[in-house]
């Protein structure tokens, strides 16, 4: 058992490639570590961990639990949950953070029931209560109608999942160092109940919503599928990406890769421009944390104006092309 209490970040990877959310979690984990006095650690289960260590240190991990086995090259729930649950039992961390990705959302709940740990999904804010020594996990509930702060007073570890783009990533430096603890595992005793036979990447590269600084999104208010051209025009002028509400995706106007919201992507750009989007809570759940929100809607009472920094009341078919024109004029 460790003498000093620890905060762990599950360093999700596949084929030696780390998920971006890992670095966001480490950046946030550093703040929790500073407040609690706990040690920030990364847990890396992979086929070959070494090439990934430097970046984990650079983002603030002081210690890496390095677990290697060819069976851990890609994610398999039975293997990874066993590795994680055993390590938690041996080391007793106080806090464990996971990305709310397809992987994290399989692993974390499995590990939670393997021990008797509390797990709070999709946190949007984490804080440490120094008086009580517990993690404060804040998240939206009821489709974003209400925020709840969840605690786990009596069970350890306290575990959370966090969607990507909720926290900002920040490197400490390029040459941080730390301790590597090699953990031996034997997976040969686990029956192979499931096997991945294929893995297909189909993300269209033009839809890099997660990385975009500017996002212009269209809703049902654009009126027709061909009007996404107008949205693309503004996105192009701003050098950004095109987002969409679910109403337009369901109508078949645009592919689901563009959908922002509770059942789409969570985005956190510098500027989010919502055009003809009413601002249903499920949509807000995916874009509310943008640094600056501009809403264009003809209905002054649309809920999107509640979260906007700037609201333009009027017809988007006039406003959006005008916006594009003036931005382009600015550039030339």
């Amino acid at each position, binding site marked *: 058992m460790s003498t000093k209490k620890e905060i762990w970040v599950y360093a999700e990877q596949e084929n030696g490639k780390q998920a971006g959310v890992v670095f966001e979690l480490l950046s946030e984990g550093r703040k929790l570590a500073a407040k609690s006095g706990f040690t920030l650690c990364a847990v890396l289960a992979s086929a070959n961990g070494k090439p990934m260590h430097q970046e984990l240190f650079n983002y603030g991990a002081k210690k890496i639990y390095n677990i290697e086995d060819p069976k851990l090259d890609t994610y398999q729930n039975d293997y990874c949950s066993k590795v994680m649950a055993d390590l938690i039992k041996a080391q007793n961390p106080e806090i464990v953070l996971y990305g709310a990705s397809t992987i994290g959302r399989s692993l974390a709940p499995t590990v939670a029931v393997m021990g008797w740990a509390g797990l709070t999904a999709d946190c949007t804010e984490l804080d440490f209560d120094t008086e009580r020594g517990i993690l404060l996990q804040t998240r939206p509930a009821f489709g974003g109608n209400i925020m709840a702060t969840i605690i786990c007073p009596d069970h350890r570890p306290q575990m959370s999942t966090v969607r990507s783009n909720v926290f900002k990533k920040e490197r400490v430096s390029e040459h941080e160092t730390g301790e590597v603890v090699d953990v031996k595992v034997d997976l040969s005793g686990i029956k192979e109940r499931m096997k991945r036979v294929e893995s297909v*990447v189909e993300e269209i590269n033009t839809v890099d919503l997660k990385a975009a600084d500017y996002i212009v999104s269209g809703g049902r208010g654009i009126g027709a599928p061909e009007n996404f051209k107008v949205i693309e025009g503004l996105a192009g002028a701003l050098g950004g990406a095109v987002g969409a509400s679910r109403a337009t995706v369901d109508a078949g106007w645009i592919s689901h890769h563009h959908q922002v919201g509770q059942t789409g992507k969570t985005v956190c750009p510098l500027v989010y421009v919502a055009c003809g989007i009413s601002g249903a809570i499920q949509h807000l759940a995916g874009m509310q944390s943008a640094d600056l*929100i501009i809403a264009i809607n003809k209905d002054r009472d649309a809920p999107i104006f509640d*979260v906007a920094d700037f609201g333009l009341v009027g017809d988007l078919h006039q406003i959006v092309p005008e916006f594009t024109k*003036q931005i382009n004029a600015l550039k030339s």
Partner: protein
Amino acid sequence: MNIVVCIKQVPDSDKVTIDRETNRLNRAGVPSIINPFDENALEMALQLKDKHGGKITVISMGPPQAEEALRTALSHGADEAILISDRKFGGADTWATSYTITLALKKLTDPVDLILFGKQAIDGDTAQVGPGVAHFYGVPMITYAKACEVTDKGFRVQQVTDHGYNVWDVEKPAALTVVKEANSLRMPSLKKKMAAKKAEIPVWGVEQLQPDETKIGLNGSPTKVNKVFAPPVKLNKEILSGEPADMVKELIFKLREKKVL
């Protein structure tokens, strides 16, 4: 093939609002529905049954009125329904819910081939109960399934990932959580609707399930709600109206002032 579908009755979150003075949800008059993702799980079960035959059992844990959700599921084509309900189960978080649902699964007399869940419940959005039950019950779990076919030894499952999809071969019995892209639920038939009204739905409580009482309800739940509050609204926002060209000009000026352009 025996399939169990776990369905949850939830308030229609589209229609829930919050009272900004008391920070409470205005739930009065808000209709209850079957969790939308659980409809996709049910439809997946119905399609498998259409092809391969068998029996579909729907299970729900909740207050007595959750029975309505089960009757609705029967009217869409499920064969049997079980309600898990007891005062002592109240206040359960996902851990205690997973434990309790698993006890009900273990009590079923016919062997189960497949257990289906929705991707997540829209009231809590946790997506934890599926993986939780799978582990307690001791079967492999694939999350975010959008398609499932029967194979010799089990199932071939397409799983939606953050960048595309994976294909898995999984042994039976297995558990899956189902995404919206999988399908959409068929209409109920009139005949089934009538039968559903009259169907016997057994209620299983502490007496029937014999749980370890330290693991159920509020006591068995590791997580507690510390506080709830209304989501913050932006206070110093600016609403512009008037001629498009003027509005945009002013907007761009302000954006440059803020150094985002």
